[in-house]
């Protein structure tokens, strides 16, 4: 077992989780919906069935934008 570094946004912060870990398990651990974020592993977009290997750098990027809606 090793660490996976995770970058979160809004606000920007970093944390570490135990790897390897599946994308869906990571999002569950973070309390996030799949449709609300993109998961970028070592610079590449990945799908929900991907296993993130230890030593990887992950960005969990929110996709929801707000505003007046007009």
């Amino acid at each position, binding site marked *: 077992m090793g660490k996976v570094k995770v970058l*979160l*946004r*809004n*606000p*920007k912060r970093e944390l570490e989780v135990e790897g390897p870990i599946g994308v869906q398990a990571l999002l569950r651990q973070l309390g*996030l*919906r*799949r*449709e*609300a*974020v*993109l998961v*970028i592993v070592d610079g*590449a*977009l*990945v*799908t*929900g*069935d991907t296993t993130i290997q230890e030593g990887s750098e992950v960005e*969990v*990027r*929110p*996709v*929801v*934008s*707000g*505003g*007046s*809606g*007009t």
Partner: protein
Amino acid sequence: MKCRSCGARAAVEVRRHNSAFCPQCFLSYCRNQVARAIDEHKMLQRGERVLVAVSGGKDSLALWDILLDLGYDADGLYIGLGLAGYSEPSGEHARAFAAGRQAKLLEVDLPADFGYDVRTAAAADRRTPCSACGLSKRHIFDRQAVDKGYDVVATGHNLDDEAAVLLGNLLHWDLAYLARQRPVLPAGDGFPRKVKPLVRLAERETAAYCVLRGIEYQVEECPMSAGNRHLGYKDALDAIEERSPGTKAAFYHGFLERGGALGAGVAEEERKGLHPCPNCGAPTVSELCAFCRLVARAAGRPRRRLPVSSGAGL
């Protein structure tokens, strides 16, 4: 997971279509969805001059990129909102994109050109910041398009935006807003035509498009939008979509196909009595248009330069 089109390793899932795509096929999918929306709703004609409303965020930059790739004559207009710590990087993303694509970017800056920022205007006009921002943007995009001879204004409203607005309009049975909630608003009475070519793409898809295209955009959320009603509607729809992929698209496109009678005649009724604002020439039913009233009220107040909050969310 394999790409639905070519069988290569997938990078993006589109759950409402029960599909996944590799990077190249996903980019083609996005362009095809925009081309289909433009065609279905007769948004644009070849040779027309398009003004893209550019915020520096994922939707407007993806839209601008796709319109250019589809061969449209599309310039951008960026409006600086005067939000410290947020407007500067947003403007930089818009400028960097324009430079990279050798596209023309017009700029208007609220503090420099009109003497106010969104926070000040919201307080002075007793509006929410999102309302003051929306009013300012609509007015400036419309006037710039009309004054500079553009045929149409294109905005980056995506499927999630439109579904959330529809939910809000239905919850309040706002027939006037329902009547106007169309992917194309025709020109007339001093307004330019306005189109929303991203209505077939979810915001997760426009974000993925930018990542795959290497387009740098403003990822951090607007500091003024935290807790706004629109985000609450999105959250509610996301919870439904999580369990039933495709619900948002069925909701919004069903409205376009079958909800035309809602608010019928209201839009026409609203446009009766329109006359040019004596101050700026914009169409209005009031003595002075809402934008000129906002500018007048905001001008009487010192600018508010509050620290940017970290916002909500992740």
